[in-house]
């Protein structure tokens, strides 16, 4: 979209801006005196006339900055993951010594698989629940309730808090003796539900025989997911609310005239039109889930233990505590690929539909 604006802007410039045209003319004149290179001259001038070159002052600086600091750093990281860089001796970066040893090491490291499993559990349950919660809130707020703006602000507010703040006070909330959660449960007589949310577990008993269901179910990761959910469902709500507001009132009325129940109306008429909102919110939430590092780090330090360890905390430990730079880089590359598989389909889909 922005390229459209840019193009129109440049067209306008070309039409009104005499100096630009004169400039082009001079170049053409110069090539004429050279005699035998009119083609080159016109090619040059058309190159200079081209959008890409003329808009270079706008896109080139950010392109270079991004290229160097983001993509350059990612590429460098990939190179390091092929070396054996560890300790305090720099690797030689000799391509003949590059190998995939660090990736093999990761795939044979039990801890890596635990972290990967946790990462995916976090990614999927957090994103799914946030979207569901956000949609529910958006529909409620959109029903024209009183104090709508108040509710919207209240739900969105946690999103504006930093991970550090929310992690610290969720740790207090989860306190077994004095935390708000157990205190509330006890006050309504649900003492038996009150648990050690950060260290506790329940035996899944007979359910443990089902594949993929662990024998012991630890609360820790889900305590983290719940806290993140609290923080991010407000964001999903705002995205959905914008989507809902974009749907013309006629469609609600038409559905009602046709005798659709509220449930049916939402399921058949409204939800299908929220596809774009869902996809964009889901991508942002998934990327946040992959970055949940800060939250875990504040809550548990660099080692949350096997029940809540995710790839980013493991990467940090390997690189910065154990000095296993190459191994840390390999984990980072794997994490990057996971993020890419989350974002790429979205970008491709947008591209296909001409929205990019």
């Amino acid at each position: 979209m922005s390229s459209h604006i840019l193009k129109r802007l440049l067209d306008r410039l070309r039409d009104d801006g005499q100096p630009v045209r004169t400039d082009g003319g001079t170049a053409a004149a110069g090539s004429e005196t050279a005699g035998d290179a009119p083609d080159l001259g016109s090619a040059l001038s058309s190159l200079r006339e081209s959008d890409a070159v003329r808009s270079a002052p706008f896109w080139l600086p950010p392109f270079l900055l991004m290229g160097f600091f983001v993509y350059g750093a990612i590429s460098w990281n990939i190179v390091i993951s092929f070396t054996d860089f560890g300790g305090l001796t720099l690797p030689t970066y000799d391509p003949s010594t590059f190998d995939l040893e660090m990736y093999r090491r990761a795939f044979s490291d039990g801890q890596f698989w635990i972290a990967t499993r946790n990462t995916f559990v976090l990614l999927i349950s957090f994103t799914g629940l946030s979207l569901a919660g956000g949609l529910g809130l958006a529909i409620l707020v959109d029903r024209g309730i009183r104090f709508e703006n108040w509710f919207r602000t209240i739900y969105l507010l946690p999103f504006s808090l930093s991970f550090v703040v929310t992690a610290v006070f969720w740790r207090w909330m989860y306190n077994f003796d004095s935390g708000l959660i157990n205190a509330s449960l006890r006050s309504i007589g649900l003492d038996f539900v009150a648990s050690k949310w950060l260290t506790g577990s329940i035996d899944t008993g007979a359910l443990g025989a089902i594949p993929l269901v662990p024998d012991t179910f630890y609360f820790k990761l889900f305590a983290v997911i719940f806290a993140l959910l609290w923080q991010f469902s407000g964001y999903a709500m705002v995205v959905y609310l914008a989507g809902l507001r974009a749907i013309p009132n006629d469609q609600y009325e038409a559905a009602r005239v046709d005798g659709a129940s509220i449930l049916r109306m939402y399921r058949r008429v409204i939800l299908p039109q929220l596809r774009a909102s869902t996809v964009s919110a889901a991508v942002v939430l998934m990327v946040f889930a992959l970055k949940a590092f800060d939250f875990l780090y504040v809550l548990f330090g660099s080692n949350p233990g096997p029940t809540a360890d995710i790839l980013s905390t493991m990467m940090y430990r390997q690189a910065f505590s154990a000095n296993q730079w190459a191994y840390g880089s390999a984990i980072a590359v794997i994490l990057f690929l996971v993020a890419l598989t989350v974002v790429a389909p979205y970008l491709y889909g947008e591209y296909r539909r001409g929205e990019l």
Partner: protein
Amino acid sequence: MTDTPDSDDVSRRTYLKLAGGAGAATFLAGCTGGGRESTTESTDGSGDSESTEETSGDDSDSSTEYNALEVQHWWTGGDGGAAVQALLEGFSEQYPDIELTENPVAGGAGQNLRAVIKKRILNNDPPSTWQAWPGANLQPFTDADKLEDIEESVWGHNDMKNAYLDGPQEAAQPAGNYVSVPLNIHRLNNLFYNVEVVEDAGVDPASIDSPSALVDAMATVDEAGYVGMAQQTNSAWSTGQLWAQVLLGEYGADVYADVTAGNVEANADAVRDSLDIVKQYSEYYPNDAGSISWQDANSKVISGDAAFFHQGDWAAGMYRAQDDFEYETNWDHVAFPGTEGLYSLNMDSFPMPTNNPSPEATKAFLRYVGSVDAQERFNPKKGSIPPRTDVPQDAFGPFLQNQMDDFSNSEAQPLSIQHGLAVAPDALTAFEDAMASFISSYDVEAAYSAIQSAFQ
């Protein structure tokens, strides 16, 4: 983050002080000023300080120009901040012609500074010296040949080799030669207790002679309605510390050293049994152990809800800051059961990197760090004890004086696992992983094999 263990942790208690808003800056400034004058006076008479001054005189003669000295550390606030300021002031007094740049890196209990140092070392641009755990923690540096031998230039002065006990000297030589100068010691084999609580429960801490006997003592305390041991399990390091003391107390310093040297299989029973004892302890932890910090845990001792507390002796800083909570009347300390005669070390030191931007000034600084004057300025403020055994005790409080006596009379000074003295960083990371798993499931067998693969 805030819970990572460290010698810097002592300073955390001053959060309370700061929160109290007592104009901490002015208070500390006044403190250091006063402290400086008195220490200078007291050391002026002693032979040591004269010899230091002589050496400093020699140095300024031999090399007239010093390059600027850059010292990096993570003591940015509280006790640590006040202590390092006292140290640096003392240094500037003795070497007025050395330009001193302090370049502290706060946060992460040293983790941030360690990242900065690694980057600078890899770029071959080290600071003059920096705060570092000595011992195996420095192994990556010695492996890469990044530290200089300072046996002659530093350890040959100030009678250092006689004044330091074997344990600290061993820690200063991670690869067999002296590369670092320890400045302070925090003891790890402590058992703190609330006097009223243990008396009420009818337990005599001094008579508990082994880590396994402590289980029974905690059971008695538990029956009397108190928390047996105030321990945090929010992050794994406290349990790592505790397990090391249990191993030390139950099986002795030799087995401990053998295990940290990598012979876990040969001591399989000792490792398994000590893990099992920690598992038994865990039944007497507070209910909210999983969501509290060590300071919160220690508050339970202060408030009289819990009987015992294991932690490095920085925990005593919290007692000192507490009004009406006095040593020996309200709280007391014994060596962790079974570890009497041992002094478990957690230390900070200053190493000498190669490619040093200011070789002569750095040597002068390291010699000063190893002197009586420096350690007498730094340690009382930090709440730690000096590694030199000839530092006068006057400036220290009664608790630290007792610790200094224990240290001087100790048979052995085992190196800490959790604080990087006994095992290299990669092994320490793997050990912490083992402990993080252990506190979530208390699976002794899994923890045993994780420790085994960590230390091999």
